[in-house]
């Protein structure tokens, strides 16, 4: 409610204390996120990258596999156009991986957290085994065995990064299943599936969203790593990682070929990390600001 500062709104007084306006968690979170300037800038930047990626599906300043007159890489291909298509690849990998991770993590985590017992023991052991093996090794082995298409890389990255999400959801499940509203639902005769998906899951959504937001830059970084090593998406496709790797050959003469994708990558990763930080603060209901 917009009021001049210092002017009391009579409707907000209940007795002697100031009553808070009734808002939903999401509206509250959105309000807090808007106040976080860094997160807001990050969101705008991500929006920009998304826009560039979408436009580049239909149009790029120059054809990406042919020569141009604007700044080009060592093979004479237009850097700006390749950056735009690279944004497309990065976002596909980042979001695609997280869709898989969220789906699998929720399924596995809620199963373990809600049913506990042997099921939880097995799932937790598998999670710990996966934590024990360095993710780069798992991903490289999968790329080696599956091949190097974009879809396979997304699967490989998801296979190495689902554990954090599963563990988080499991913890949420363990905590929430003891709460009164779950007990009430159970007393009311709700089936297990209804309790899990209608009562527990919506309440665990905040941390899941935050975790997924942090997962996107991690996946983008991973893909850039693989492509940088020459083991990611197949070469003519302009991934930011492989663009940087290509540029190394001409580092002395034209450092901008390396620096352009490196900068794009760093800014995008930073934006997602800032957005994640902002979301974490915004979705924390204990913070009443």
């Amino acid at each position, binding site marked *: 409610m917009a009021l001049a500062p210092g002017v009391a709104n009579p409707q907000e007084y209940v007795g002697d204390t100031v009553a808070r306006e009734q808002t939903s968690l999401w509206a509250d979170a959105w309000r807090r996120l808007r106040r976080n300037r860094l997160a807001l800038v990050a969101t705008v930047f991500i929006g920009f990258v998304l826009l560039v990626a979408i436009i580049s599906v239909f149009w790029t300043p120059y054809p990406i596999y042919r020569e141009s007159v604007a700044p080009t890489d060592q093979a004479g291909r237009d850097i700006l156009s390749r950056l735009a298509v690279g944004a497309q690849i990065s976002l596909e990998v980042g979001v695609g991986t997280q869709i898989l991770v969220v789906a699998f993590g929720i399924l596995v985590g809620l199963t373990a957290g809600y049913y506990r017992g042997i099921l939880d023991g097995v799932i937790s052991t598998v999670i710990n085994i996966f934590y*024990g*093996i*360095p*993710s*780069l*090794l798992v991903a*490289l*082995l999968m790329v*080696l*065995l599956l091949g190097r298409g974009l879809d396979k890389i997304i699967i490989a990255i998801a296979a190495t990064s689902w554990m954090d999400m599963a563990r988080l959801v499991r913890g949420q499940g363990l905590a929430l299943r003891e709460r009164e509203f779950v007990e009430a639902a159970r007393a009311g005769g709700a089936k297990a599936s209804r309790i899990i998906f209608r009562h527990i899951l919506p309440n665990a959504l905040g941390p899941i969203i935050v975790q997924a937001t942090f997962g996107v*830059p991690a996946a983008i*970084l991973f893909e*850039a*790593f693989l492509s*940088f*090593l*020459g*083991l990611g998406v197949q070469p003519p496709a302009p991934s930011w*990682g492989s663009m*940087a790797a290509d*540029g*190394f050959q001409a*580092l*002395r003469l034209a*450092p901008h070929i*390396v*620096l352009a994708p*490196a900068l794009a*990558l*760093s800014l995008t*990763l*930073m934006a997602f*990390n800032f957005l994640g930080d902002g979301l974490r603060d915004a979705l924390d209901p204990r913070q009443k600001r």
Partner: protein
Amino acid sequence: MLTRGSLIYMGQRVVLILFTTLAVSSLVFLGVHSLPGNAFISEHRINPQAIAEIMHHYNLDLPLWDQYRLFMSNLILHGNLGESVINRGVQITPLLLREATVSAEVGGVALLFTVGVGVLLGVIAAIKQNTWIDYVATTTSVIGFSMPNFVIASMLLVFFGVWLYNWTGGAFYYDIGWNGTYGTLGQLPVPAFALGFPYASIVARLTRASMLETIKQDYVRTARAKGLPSRIVITRHALRNALIPVVTILGPLVTGIITGSVVIENIFGIPGLGKEFVTSILNRDYNIVIGVFTFYAGLVGLANLVVDMLYTVIDPRIRY
């Protein structure tokens, strides 16, 4: 510190590491051998007899189960990982052992740098909380955290290798490229920095947070009250306890540096395990691929064991 219990625990861990390593190498062996074709498919040998001889030399003419049994018995009994498929006659185990020492050299320097700089930045930021020094340190660590190590490496190379060369007219610059097996002393810092900086940022963030927590404690105030110089209070009283949460991330950190070295070694042309890893995958030298996976699995396990043992040194309350 080294009680009977902790020796037994260490023994158990070593056995577990051996099993994990063998499991990883079996998995990779079976996976790689289930791929269609073989390493010689690209060679245009007209003589089928020559191919048969080579297949026989690498035991590739045996059934998969026999190949696996031979590989495992060689590995377990002799530590022998076989022979390179591309460079005939090159034994893999001595090759990888030498490369592992090169990686250890670079990784060790990076680790020292990570912990040293990270803790230093974190402590300074905590002591000077909410001053410009704090902001510079905090911002630096956020940037370092968000930048992949190959981006840092490329920026360092452009700055020290290219711009510095141009500014000083070639008098003082970083020589891109790696001399000999172990490099020169002047060549080590740049790759070590690139490898360690992202992790130094994490260490700095953690140290700052835990330091801020610790310097509010009563015993720190007592130490100040009894008139100890600030330097002693910070290093002897506050830092020792503030470091305990930091030590817990040493495990993931060491793993991170080992995997990060795969990228850094390829950028700087360092002939270590990481470079061999990528080269062997690109060359389809499957025997080396299996060997490198085996090495990495063992290495990561051992590194984590060492880190766990370090906990007991830094925090005597932890026992195994």
